[in-house]
Protein backbone atom coordinates (compact mmCIF):
# COMPACT_ATOMS: atom_id res chain seq x y z
CA UNK A 1 0.00 0.00 0.00
CA UNK A 2 2.99 2.28 -0.37
CA UNK A 3 2.11 5.61 -1.88
CA UNK A 4 4.89 5.42 -4.41
CA UNK A 5 3.85 1.99 -5.60
CA UNK A 6 0.15 2.75 -5.59
CA UNK A 7 -1.11 2.07 -9.10
CA UNK A 8 -3.45 5.07 -9.30
CA UNK A 9 -1.92 8.58 -9.35
CA UNK A 10 -3.09 10.50 -6.26
CA UNK A 11 -6.04 12.83 -6.71
CA UNK A 12 -5.24 16.47 -5.90
CA UNK A 13 -5.32 17.10 -2.15
CA UNK A 14 -8.31 19.46 -2.42
CA UNK A 15 -10.25 16.65 -4.16
CA UNK A 16 -9.26 14.18 -1.48
CA UNK A 17 -10.51 16.50 1.27
CA UNK A 18 -13.78 17.04 -0.59
CA UNK A 19 -14.14 13.28 -1.06
CA UNK A 20 -13.79 12.54 2.65
CA UNK A 21 -16.21 15.33 3.54
CA UNK A 22 -18.78 13.96 1.08
CA UNK A 23 -18.33 10.38 2.28
CA UNK A 24 -18.97 11.48 5.87
CA UNK A 25 -21.86 13.74 4.89
CA UNK A 26 -23.49 10.86 3.00
CA UNK A 27 -23.72 9.09 6.36
CA UNK A 28 -24.96 12.26 8.08
CA UNK A 29 -21.84 12.35 10.25
CA UNK A 30 -21.08 16.06 9.75
CA UNK A 31 -23.28 18.37 11.87
CA UNK A 32 -24.57 21.35 9.89
CA UNK A 33 -22.01 24.15 9.87
CA UNK A 34 -19.43 22.24 11.92
CA UNK A 35 -16.52 22.51 9.50
CA UNK A 36 -17.14 26.19 8.74
CA UNK A 37 -17.73 27.13 12.38
CA UNK A 38 -14.65 25.26 13.58
CA UNK A 39 -12.40 26.95 11.06
CA UNK A 40 -13.88 30.39 11.79
CA UNK A 41 -13.71 29.96 15.57
CA UNK A 42 -10.11 28.80 15.32
CA UNK A 43 -9.02 31.85 13.38
CA UNK A 44 -10.98 34.29 15.55
CA UNK A 45 -10.30 32.90 19.02
CA UNK A 46 -6.90 31.22 18.89
CA UNK A 47 -4.54 34.05 18.05
CA UNK A 48 -1.03 35.17 18.88
CA UNK A 49 -2.57 38.49 19.94
CA UNK A 50 -3.78 36.58 23.03
CA UNK A 51 -0.23 35.72 24.00
CA UNK A 52 0.82 39.31 23.32
CA UNK A 53 -1.74 40.51 25.88
CA UNK A 54 -0.37 38.01 28.40
CA UNK A 55 3.19 39.23 27.83
CA UNK A 56 2.21 42.90 28.11
CA UNK A 57 0.35 42.32 31.36
CA UNK A 58 3.32 40.42 32.78
CA UNK A 59 5.60 43.35 31.91
CA UNK A 60 3.52 45.93 33.78
CA UNK A 61 2.07 43.85 36.64
CA UNK A 62 4.69 42.08 38.74
CA UNK A 63 2.11 40.11 40.73
CA UNK A 64 0.63 38.79 37.47
CA UNK A 65 4.11 37.98 36.20
CA UNK A 66 4.75 35.90 39.32
CA UNK A 67 1.45 34.04 38.89
CA UNK A 68 2.19 33.49 35.18
CA UNK A 69 5.57 31.94 35.87
CA UNK A 70 4.22 29.81 38.73
CA UNK A 71 1.14 28.50 36.89
CA UNK A 72 0.84 29.51 33.25
CA UNK A 73 -2.41 27.64 32.67
CA UNK A 74 -4.25 29.49 35.44
CA UNK A 75 -2.70 32.88 34.67
CA UNK A 76 -3.70 32.89 30.98
CA UNK A 77 -7.17 31.64 31.96
CA UNK A 78 -7.50 34.85 34.04
CA UNK A 79 -7.55 36.68 30.69
CA UNK A 80 -10.02 34.19 29.25
CA UNK A 81 -7.59 32.11 27.20
CA UNK A 82 -8.15 28.38 27.30
CA UNK A 83 -7.70 25.59 24.80
CA UNK A 84 -8.03 21.86 25.12
CA UNK A 85 -4.54 21.31 23.79
CA UNK A 86 -2.80 23.59 26.24
CA UNK A 87 -4.06 22.37 29.56
CA UNK A 88 -0.56 22.54 31.06
CA UNK A 89 1.08 25.75 29.95
CA UNK A 90 4.57 26.64 31.11
CA UNK A 91 5.84 30.17 30.51
CA UNK A 92 9.60 30.47 29.97
CA UNK A 93 11.15 33.70 31.20
CA UNK A 94 13.96 35.26 29.17
CA UNK A 95 16.60 37.15 31.16
CA UNK A 96 19.66 39.16 30.08
CA UNK A 97 21.69 35.94 30.44
CA UNK A 98 19.18 33.33 29.22
CA UNK A 99 17.36 32.96 25.90
CA UNK A 100 14.55 30.39 25.51
CA UNK A 101 13.31 28.91 22.22
CA UNK A 102 10.61 26.29 21.65
CA UNK A 103 10.07 23.55 19.05
CA UNK A 104 8.11 20.34 18.58
CA UNK A 105 10.57 17.99 16.86
CA UNK A 106 8.13 15.09 16.38
CA UNK A 107 5.06 16.93 15.13
CA UNK A 108 4.05 20.54 15.72
CA UNK A 109 2.38 20.77 19.13
CA UNK A 110 1.74 24.40 20.05
CA UNK A 111 -0.09 26.34 22.77
CA UNK A 112 -2.94 27.32 20.43
CA UNK A 113 -4.71 29.46 23.01
CA UNK A 114 -1.87 31.99 23.25
CA UNK A 115 0.21 31.46 20.08
CA UNK A 116 -2.53 30.52 17.62
CA UNK A 117 -2.10 27.73 15.09
CA UNK A 118 1.62 27.56 14.31
CA UNK A 119 3.07 29.09 11.12
CA UNK A 120 4.47 26.90 8.35
CA UNK A 121 8.11 27.57 9.21
CA UNK A 122 7.54 26.27 12.75
CA UNK A 123 6.11 23.05 11.29
CA UNK A 124 8.86 22.63 8.70
CA UNK A 125 11.34 19.72 8.81
CA UNK A 126 14.12 22.33 8.59
CA UNK A 127 13.19 24.03 11.86
CA UNK A 128 12.32 20.81 13.70
CA UNK A 129 15.57 19.07 12.71
CA UNK A 130 17.97 21.95 13.21
CA UNK A 131 16.95 24.02 16.22
CA UNK A 132 17.78 21.31 18.76
CA UNK A 133 21.15 20.68 17.15
CA UNK A 134 22.50 24.09 16.14
CA UNK A 135 20.28 26.68 17.82
CA UNK A 136 22.67 29.62 17.64
CA UNK A 137 23.44 29.03 13.97
CA UNK A 138 19.80 28.66 13.03
CA UNK A 139 18.68 31.66 15.08
CA UNK A 140 21.41 33.76 13.46
CA UNK A 141 20.17 32.67 10.02
CA UNK A 142 16.70 33.80 11.07
CA UNK A 143 18.08 37.19 12.08
CA UNK A 144 18.66 36.72 15.81
CA UNK A 145 22.27 36.79 17.00
CA UNK A 146 22.39 35.48 20.56
CA UNK A 147 25.59 36.71 22.27
CA UNK A 148 27.96 33.95 23.40
CA UNK A 149 27.56 34.93 27.05
CA UNK A 150 23.79 34.37 26.87
CA UNK A 151 22.78 30.75 27.53
CA UNK A 152 20.31 29.13 25.12
CA UNK A 153 17.68 26.69 26.30
CA UNK A 154 15.76 24.79 23.59
CA UNK A 155 12.47 23.30 24.79
CA UNK A 156 11.17 20.28 22.81
CA UNK A 157 7.39 19.87 23.14
CA UNK A 158 7.62 16.08 23.18
CA UNK A 159 4.96 15.57 25.87
CA UNK A 160 1.72 17.29 26.87
CA UNK A 161 3.31 20.47 28.26
CA UNK A 162 2.82 23.52 26.04
CA UNK A 163 5.28 26.40 26.21
CA UNK A 164 5.34 30.14 25.59
CA UNK A 165 8.35 32.42 25.91
CA UNK A 166 8.08 35.60 27.98
CA UNK A 167 10.46 37.85 26.03
CA UNK A 168 12.51 40.71 27.48
CA UNK A 169 10.72 44.03 27.54
CA UNK A 170 12.40 46.34 25.03
CA UNK A 171 14.21 49.42 26.26
CA UNK A 172 12.46 52.72 25.63
CA UNK A 173 8.98 51.39 26.43
CA UNK A 174 8.84 52.72 29.99
CA UNK A 175 5.46 54.19 30.78
CA UNK A 176 3.73 52.58 27.81
CA UNK A 177 0.19 51.31 28.33
CA UNK A 178 -0.50 47.58 28.42
CA UNK A 179 -2.40 47.88 25.14
CA UNK A 180 0.43 49.65 23.40
CA UNK A 181 2.93 47.11 24.69
CA UNK A 182 0.77 44.23 23.46
CA UNK A 183 0.95 45.79 20.00
CA UNK A 184 4.70 45.26 19.73
CA UNK A 185 4.83 41.63 20.93
CA UNK A 186 5.27 39.25 18.00
CA UNK A 187 4.53 35.55 17.76
CA UNK A 188 8.16 34.99 16.77
CA UNK A 189 9.31 36.54 20.06
CA UNK A 190 6.99 34.22 22.02
CA UNK A 191 8.47 31.22 20.19
CA UNK A 192 11.98 32.53 20.77
CA UNK A 193 13.26 33.14 17.24
CA UNK A 194 13.15 36.94 17.40
CA UNK A 195 13.98 39.68 19.87
CA UNK A 196 11.78 42.73 20.23
CA UNK A 197 13.33 45.97 19.03
CA UNK A 198 14.30 48.64 21.51
CA UNK A 199 12.60 52.00 21.09
CA UNK A 200 15.27 54.64 21.66
CA UNK A 201 14.09 58.19 22.00
CA UNK A 202 10.41 57.34 22.14
CA UNK A 203 10.00 57.42 25.87
CA UNK A 204 6.63 58.10 27.46
CA UNK A 205 5.11 58.83 24.09
CA UNK A 206 1.60 58.39 25.48
Amino acid at each position, binding site marked *: *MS*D*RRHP*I*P*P*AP*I*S*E*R*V*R*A*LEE*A*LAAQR*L*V*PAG*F*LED*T*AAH*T*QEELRPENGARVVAKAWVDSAYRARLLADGTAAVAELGFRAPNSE*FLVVLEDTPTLHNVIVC*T*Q*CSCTAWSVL*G*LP*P*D*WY*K*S*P*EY*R*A*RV*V*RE*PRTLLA*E*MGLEVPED*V*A*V*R*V*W*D*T*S*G*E*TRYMVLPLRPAGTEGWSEERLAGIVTR*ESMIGVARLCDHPGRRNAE
Partner: protein
Amino acid sequence: MDGIHDLGGMNGFGPVEVERGEPVFHEPWQARAFALNLLGIRVLKAYNVHEYRHAVERMDPAHYLAASYYERWFTGVATLLVEKGVVTRHELEARAGGGFPLSRPSASVQPGGLSQPEAARFAVGDAVVVRDIHPRGHTRVPRYVRGKRGVVVRVAPRFEFPDLAGHGLRAHREHAYHVEFPARDLWSDAAAGRETVIVDLWQSYLEAAS
Protein backbone atom coordinates in the same frame (compact mmCIF):
# COMPACT_ATOMS: atom_id res chain seq x y z
CA MET B 1 8.53 3.95 15.99
CA ASP B 2 11.84 5.10 14.60
CA GLY B 3 10.03 7.07 11.92
CA ILE B 4 10.56 9.98 9.59
CA HIS B 5 8.61 12.24 11.98
CA ASP B 6 11.38 12.03 14.60
CA LEU B 7 13.43 14.77 12.98
CA GLY B 8 15.32 16.27 15.92
CA GLY B 9 19.01 16.61 15.10
CA MET B 10 18.82 15.20 11.57
CA ASN B 11 21.36 16.68 9.15
CA GLY B 12 20.87 17.81 5.58
CA PHE B 13 18.06 20.31 5.95
CA GLY B 14 18.45 23.82 4.59
CA PRO B 15 17.33 27.27 5.70
CA VAL B 16 14.05 27.95 7.47
CA GLU B 17 11.86 30.03 5.17
CA VAL B 18 9.64 32.50 7.01
CA GLU B 19 6.62 33.89 5.15
CA ARG B 20 5.77 37.42 6.27
CA GLY B 21 2.12 38.00 7.11
CA GLU B 22 1.34 34.34 6.72
CA PRO B 23 -2.40 33.48 6.77
CA VAL B 24 -3.64 30.78 9.18
CA PHE B 25 -4.79 28.71 6.20
CA HIS B 26 -3.34 29.12 2.72
CA GLU B 27 -6.16 27.34 0.86
CA PRO B 28 -9.82 26.65 1.72
CA TRP B 29 -9.19 22.88 1.82
CA GLN B 30 -6.68 23.36 4.65
CA ALA B 31 -9.32 24.88 6.94
CA ARG B 32 -11.68 22.02 6.15
CA ALA B 33 -8.99 19.39 6.70
CA PHE B 34 -8.17 21.03 10.03
CA ALA B 35 -11.82 20.89 11.09
CA LEU B 36 -12.25 17.29 9.91
CA ASN B 37 -9.74 16.17 12.54
CA LEU B 38 -11.67 17.91 15.31
CA LEU B 39 -14.79 16.23 13.93
CA GLY B 40 -13.10 12.81 14.13
CA ILE B 41 -11.82 13.34 17.66
CA ARG B 42 -14.50 15.43 19.38
CA VAL B 43 -17.74 14.70 17.53
CA LEU B 44 -17.40 11.21 16.06
CA LYS B 45 -15.01 10.14 18.85
CA ALA B 46 -13.58 7.70 16.32
CA TYR B 47 -10.03 8.06 17.65
CA ASN B 48 -7.94 10.08 20.09
CA VAL B 49 -5.20 12.66 19.54
CA HIS B 50 -2.44 10.11 20.24
CA GLU B 51 -3.78 7.82 17.54
CA TYR B 52 -3.91 10.82 15.23
CA ARG B 53 -0.23 11.63 15.86
CA HIS B 54 0.69 7.99 15.27
CA ALA B 55 -1.30 7.87 12.02
CA VAL B 56 0.77 10.79 10.69
CA GLU B 57 3.99 9.10 11.81
CA ARG B 58 3.02 6.02 9.81
CA MET B 59 2.94 7.89 6.49
CA ASP B 60 5.29 6.66 3.81
CA PRO B 61 8.51 8.61 4.58
CA ALA B 62 8.80 10.06 1.08
CA HIS B 63 5.18 11.21 1.18
CA TYR B 64 5.70 12.67 4.68
CA LEU B 65 8.57 14.89 3.59
CA ALA B 66 6.93 15.93 0.32
CA ALA B 67 3.53 16.76 1.82
CA SER B 68 2.51 20.11 3.25
CA TYR B 69 1.59 20.23 6.94
CA TYR B 70 -2.14 20.03 6.30
CA GLU B 71 -1.72 17.23 3.78
CA ARG B 72 0.05 15.25 6.54
CA TRP B 73 -2.72 16.24 8.94
CA PHE B 74 -5.40 15.14 6.48
CA THR B 75 -3.67 11.85 5.63
CA GLY B 76 -3.68 10.97 9.33
CA VAL B 77 -7.40 11.72 9.61
CA ALA B 78 -8.36 9.79 6.46
CA THR B 79 -6.20 6.82 7.47
CA LEU B 80 -7.90 6.53 10.87
CA LEU B 81 -11.42 6.91 9.48
CA VAL B 82 -10.68 4.07 7.04
CA GLU B 83 -9.00 1.90 9.70
CA LYS B 84 -11.89 2.45 12.11
CA GLY B 85 -14.38 1.41 9.44
CA VAL B 86 -16.14 4.77 9.19
CA VAL B 87 -15.41 5.07 5.45
CA THR B 88 -13.71 2.81 2.90
CA ARG B 89 -10.68 3.57 0.79
CA HIS B 90 -12.61 2.39 -2.24
CA GLU B 91 -15.32 5.00 -1.66
CA LEU B 92 -12.73 7.74 -1.08
CA GLU B 93 -10.90 6.91 -4.31
CA ALA B 94 -14.15 6.81 -6.23
CA ARG B 95 -15.29 10.16 -4.87
CA ALA B 96 -11.87 11.79 -5.31
CA GLY B 97 -11.47 10.48 -8.85
CA GLY B 98 -7.94 9.24 -8.26
CA GLY B 99 -5.56 7.63 -5.82
CA PHE B 100 -5.94 8.29 -2.12
CA PRO B 101 -2.63 7.75 -0.31
CA LEU B 102 -3.01 6.61 3.28
CA SER B 103 -0.51 5.77 6.01
CA ARG B 104 1.00 2.35 6.47
CA PRO B 105 -0.54 -0.10 8.97
CA SER B 106 0.38 0.15 12.62
CA ALA B 107 2.78 -2.35 14.20
CA SER B 108 1.32 -4.48 16.97
CA VAL B 109 2.41 -3.09 20.32
CA GLN B 110 3.86 -5.03 23.18
CA PRO B 111 4.58 -2.29 25.71
CA GLY B 112 6.11 -4.65 28.22
CA GLY B 113 8.51 -3.82 30.99
CA LEU B 114 7.11 -0.39 31.73
CA SER B 115 6.59 0.40 35.36
CA GLN B 116 3.71 2.74 36.14
CA PRO B 117 3.74 3.81 39.75
CA GLU B 118 1.08 6.36 40.62
CA ALA B 119 3.47 8.58 42.50
CA ALA B 120 6.23 10.69 41.01
CA ARG B 121 9.44 8.69 41.10
CA PHE B 122 11.77 11.61 40.43
CA ALA B 123 12.14 15.12 41.83
CA VAL B 124 13.66 18.36 40.56
CA GLY B 125 17.45 18.04 40.55
CA ASP B 126 17.49 14.25 40.11
CA ALA B 127 19.87 12.83 37.51
CA VAL B 128 18.10 10.44 35.15
CA VAL B 129 18.98 8.33 32.12
CA VAL B 130 16.59 7.91 29.21
CA ARG B 131 15.93 4.24 28.49
CA ASP B 132 17.45 3.17 25.19
CA ILE B 133 14.22 1.74 23.80
CA HIS B 134 13.00 1.37 20.22
CA PRO B 135 9.25 0.65 20.31
CA ARG B 136 7.79 -0.22 16.91
CA GLY B 137 4.55 1.52 17.83
CA HIS B 138 3.82 5.06 18.96
CA THR B 139 6.20 6.65 21.42
CA ARG B 140 7.14 10.21 22.38
CA VAL B 141 10.73 9.67 23.36
CA PRO B 142 12.83 11.25 20.61
CA ARG B 143 15.77 9.22 19.31
CA TYR B 144 18.26 11.96 20.07
CA VAL B 145 17.91 11.59 23.85
CA ARG B 146 17.76 7.81 24.16
CA GLY B 147 20.52 6.52 26.43
CA LYS B 148 21.43 10.09 27.41
CA ARG B 149 21.80 11.42 30.93
CA GLY B 150 19.96 14.56 32.02
CA VAL B 151 18.64 16.39 35.06
CA VAL B 152 14.99 16.90 36.01
CA VAL B 153 14.09 20.61 35.99
CA ARG B 154 10.31 20.31 36.46
CA VAL B 155 7.83 17.61 37.41
CA ALA B 156 4.80 17.87 35.09
CA PRO B 157 1.34 16.54 35.97
CA ARG B 158 0.27 13.00 35.14
CA PHE B 159 -0.82 12.49 31.54
CA GLU B 160 -2.10 9.50 29.57
CA PHE B 161 0.77 7.27 28.52
CA PRO B 162 0.97 7.81 24.75
CA ASP B 163 2.62 4.49 23.85
CA LEU B 164 -0.68 2.81 24.76
CA ALA B 165 -3.17 5.58 23.93
CA GLY B 166 -1.61 5.90 20.45
CA HIS B 167 -2.96 2.44 19.66
CA GLY B 168 -6.44 3.03 21.08
CA LEU B 169 -5.52 0.95 24.14
CA ARG B 170 -6.55 1.85 27.66
CA ALA B 171 -3.76 4.06 28.98
CA HIS B 172 -2.87 4.87 32.57
CA ARG B 173 -1.70 8.33 33.55
CA GLU B 174 1.78 8.91 34.79
CA HIS B 175 3.99 11.88 35.55
CA ALA B 176 6.12 13.46 32.88
CA TYR B 177 9.34 15.34 33.58
CA HIS B 178 11.16 18.19 31.91
CA VAL B 179 14.67 16.81 31.60
CA GLU B 180 17.56 19.07 30.65
CA PHE B 181 20.50 17.80 28.57
CA PRO B 182 23.69 19.74 27.80
CA ALA B 183 23.96 20.02 24.01
CA ARG B 184 27.51 18.66 24.09
CA ASP B 185 26.18 15.40 25.60
CA LEU B 186 23.68 15.03 22.74
CA TRP B 187 25.81 16.03 19.77
CA SER B 188 29.49 15.14 19.50
CA ASP B 189 30.09 18.15 17.29
CA ALA B 190 28.30 20.66 19.53
CA ALA B 191 30.30 23.69 20.52
CA ALA B 192 31.20 23.80 24.19
CA GLY B 193 28.85 26.75 24.52
CA ARG B 194 26.06 27.14 26.99
CA GLU B 195 23.27 25.42 25.09
CA THR B 196 20.90 22.90 26.59
CA VAL B 197 17.85 21.02 25.32
CA ILE B 198 14.88 20.26 27.57
CA VAL B 199 12.69 17.29 26.62
CA ASP B 200 9.31 16.42 28.20
CA LEU B 201 9.50 12.71 29.05
CA TRP B 202 7.06 10.29 30.66
CA GLN B 203 8.22 8.41 33.75
CA SER B 204 8.30 5.05 31.95
CA TYR B 205 10.97 6.43 29.61
CA LEU B 206 13.35 7.17 32.48
CA GLU B 207 15.63 5.39 34.93
CA ALA B 208 17.54 6.79 37.89
CA ALA B 209 21.12 7.61 36.92
CA SER B 210 23.60 5.50 38.83
